[in-house]
């Protein structure tokens, strides 16, 4: 039986701020996510043009070629505001911590076959630079995108990217040591296997359109890279070669990618649904960058999986093609 505690009952004059009610209605109590995100960005009567971009207003929807009647049509299905995002990550971080100490305390690293470990490090260590590139790009999307429901999760995503880079760094330190980081960086800068990918990442640094950048980074590149490396290579291939310990150390990365892909999908789907022009632009960008990403990942997939690489990459590309089809992009 539940007993209603008596409190002084005072009728509120309104349920939330007008810039939130505009989206949820006057008669509804918004969620914390909605109240903290909708309408948050100043939108008119800007005083000065940026000295670093005099062709645009401070916040300017024309920085991208796609057009939205209202950018707040984009929402995050995870409903992340700072508090829920940071609490979610704090819990996951505890699991990562437990996994690292489990692997370390049971001496699981010593049990890894040497060749498997060496190969895994060759594949995974340079990826910390790729994640760092993603961090730069998502910061850029936050800075130059329009509307808080689009830009705020981009900043959370940028910091998730940094965390991925840091967890990969930690993995390399745990499995081998600091010299592995130097070798990884040297491979990233000079080894032929990595140059297409590095070129891809550096080319995204100079993409001025924040939505094209979103497609290039979060949909095309990460949409192939994470399934290919962390699902197919680490979780399946490595596990079969006695490398499950490594998969414990990348568990967060896999889980995070699946979760954040829901946000990426929601952004793309909403923008595509807005108009044929948007759909055509997204499709064109996706085709261009996905093709390049697949080329860039080819040598890495061979490095990781040898003979099995071609079919693995093909499967991942097929998976991504199905994914974007559901989002409304043309074949």
């Amino acid at each position, binding site marked *: 039986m539940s007993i209603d505690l008596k409190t*002084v009952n*005072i009728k509120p*004059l*309104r349920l*939330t*701020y*007008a*810039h939130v009610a505009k989206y949820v209605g006057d008669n509804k109590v918004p969620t914390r996510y909605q*109240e903290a995100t909708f309408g*948050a960005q*100043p939108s008119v*009567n*800007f*005083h*000065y*043009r940026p*000295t*670093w971009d005099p062709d645009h207003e*401070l916040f300017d929807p024309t920085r991208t070629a796609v057009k939205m009647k209202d950018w707040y049509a984009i929402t995050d299905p995870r409903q992340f*505001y*700072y*508090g829920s995002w*940071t*609490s979610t990550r*704090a*819990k996951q*971080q505890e699991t*990562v*911590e437990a996994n690292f100490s489990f692997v*370390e305390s049971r001496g699981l*690293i010593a049990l890894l076959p040497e060749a498997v470990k060496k190969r895994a490090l060759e594949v995974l260590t340079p990826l910390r*630079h790729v*994640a*760092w590139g993603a*961090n*730069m790009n998502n*910061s850029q999307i*936050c*800075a130059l995108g329009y509307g*808080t429901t689009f830009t705020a999760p981009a*900043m959370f995503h*940028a*910091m998730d990217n*940094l*965390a991925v*880079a*840091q*967890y990969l760094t930690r993995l390399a*330190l745990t499995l*081998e*040591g*600091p010299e592995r*980081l130097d070798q990884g*960086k040297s491979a990233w*800068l000079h080894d032929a296997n990595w140059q297409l990918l*590095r*070129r891809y990442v*550096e080319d995204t*640094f*100079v993409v001025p359109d924040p939505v094209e950048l979103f497609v290039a980074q979060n949909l095309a590149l990460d949409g192939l890279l994470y399934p290919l490396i962390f699902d197919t290579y680490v979780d399946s291939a490595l596990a079969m070669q006695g490398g499950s310990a490594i998969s414990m150390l990348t568990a967060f990365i896999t889980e995070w990618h699946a979760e954040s892909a829901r946000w990426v999908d929601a952004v793309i789907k909403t923008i595509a649904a807005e108009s044929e022009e948007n759909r055509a632009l997204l499709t064109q960008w996706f085709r261009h960058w996905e093709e390049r990403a697949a080329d860039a990942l080819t040598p890495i997939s061979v490095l990781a999986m040898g003979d099995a690489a071609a079919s693995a990459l093909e499967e991942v590309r097929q998976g991504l093609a199905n994914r974007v089809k559901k989002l409304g992009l043309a074949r």
Partner: protein
Amino acid sequence: MDTQVKKLGLKERYAAMTRGLGWETTYQPMEKVYPYATYEGIKIHDWDKWVDPFRMTMDAYWKYQGEKEKKLYAVIDAFQQNNGFLGITDARYVNAVKLFIQGVSPLEYYAHRGFAQVGRHFVGEGLRVACQMQSLDEIRHYQTQTHAISTYNKYFNGMHHSLHWFDRVWYLSVPKSFFEDALTAGPFEYLTSISFSFEYVLTNLLFVPFMSGAAYNGDLATVTFGFSAQSDESRHMTLGIEAIKFMLEQDPDNVPIVQRWIDKWFWRGYRVLTLVGMMMDYMLPKRVMSWREAWEIYGEQNGRALFRDLARYGIREPKGWLDAIDGKDHISHQAWNTFYNYNAAAPFHTWVPTDEELDWLSAKYPNSFDQYYRPRLEFYREQHRAGNRFYNKTLPMLCTVCQIPMLFTEPGDPTTICYRETDYQGDKYHFCSDHCKEIFENEPEKYVQSWLPVHQIYQGNCFKPGVDPTQPGFDPLMAVFDYYDLDFGRDNLDFEGSEDQKHFAAWRGQALQNTV
């Protein structure tokens, strides 16, 4: 931890986690990847000399911040559930909260976007990560403030259109133009303006008064937010001082550029703080300390020590320093007088302080209050009692730079309004002080763009679409309030007789007394 990890000290480990991640690009030239790194003239020779003051990795960040969030939201929930606002000293206090949500919370949002921008564009990885973390903290502050103040918005007027007002209402162009000035500057000036001048030099004059004001006046929601944000703020302050030292140490040519920025941003920030001074002296039913006292402790004493410390780099006190000191006896009173006059156009309430409060002001301002300001307030009160509550309906001239109406007086002469002007490309521009004038003259092409609310009203840009000003009986001010979405008679005008006043008295009565 295995033995190999232990080989790296904390510092090296952190370096591997941040600056080790970056590289010199070759497929795209560095100048294209970091296009804003040099145009301000700041020379950086060695980014590795940047010292990371916190050495916080993301896992640690999440851990600490997650804990803080848990505690903060427990209090916000309880406050909401138990009508916590009934515990405040007096409904007049809520006007300080209005000022905060209207004028300060949007700045947190701006800081979030600004730090995302510089967090992408600085060349050095260490500085970038510090800026990115601050971008996160700032969205946290915007969002937690929005949640904490949501309860007040449900029961009191003057908060429901806070963001709409921020983009439109005359007085809010003061904080808005301040922050947009910073955001539209280059990355190094942004850091000097926000991280150093605002966070390091002046933040205690913003943060401490509001949060202590909340504590003194029974506002549990805001003060809990304040405590929770304190550790973020101390990180931001450290970033500010480290950043300034880094720029100064990298090249002697940076010194005059940084000095000019310090001159500018000290004065810009000081002008914005006028609003805080007014809040401290007039809006808090239970006073914490006077603006003058706060200024002496957090402005003069701390500032003097800081600029003594920076002298070895060739940095001196900001140019406006002495004029700021001169203003401490006056600015809060001059500002309150202006809002009292223009209260039809500002979405919070004003009032004449009670006798006891007037005595407090007399005691705190022995050099100015009885002589210049008390008689005026007592006159307003007499007029109000006689049924002549005065609302000024003409629009004031604004300073082109700080956008505050011309309400400040000449240094050393509190009976003469200070006017300055300059000509630029055939137009005349007006300023409140030598320092705002100098800021304009250093960058006229920027400040001629200012969206000055009074000019905009006169140009007809502050009416809703479709409004016809040529119609007989057209009331331009009411049309402006409509454009503001200001609920006339509820959001504005004197506290005496306001809905806030009546509601609070009724609710408190309901909470404290038994009904038969």
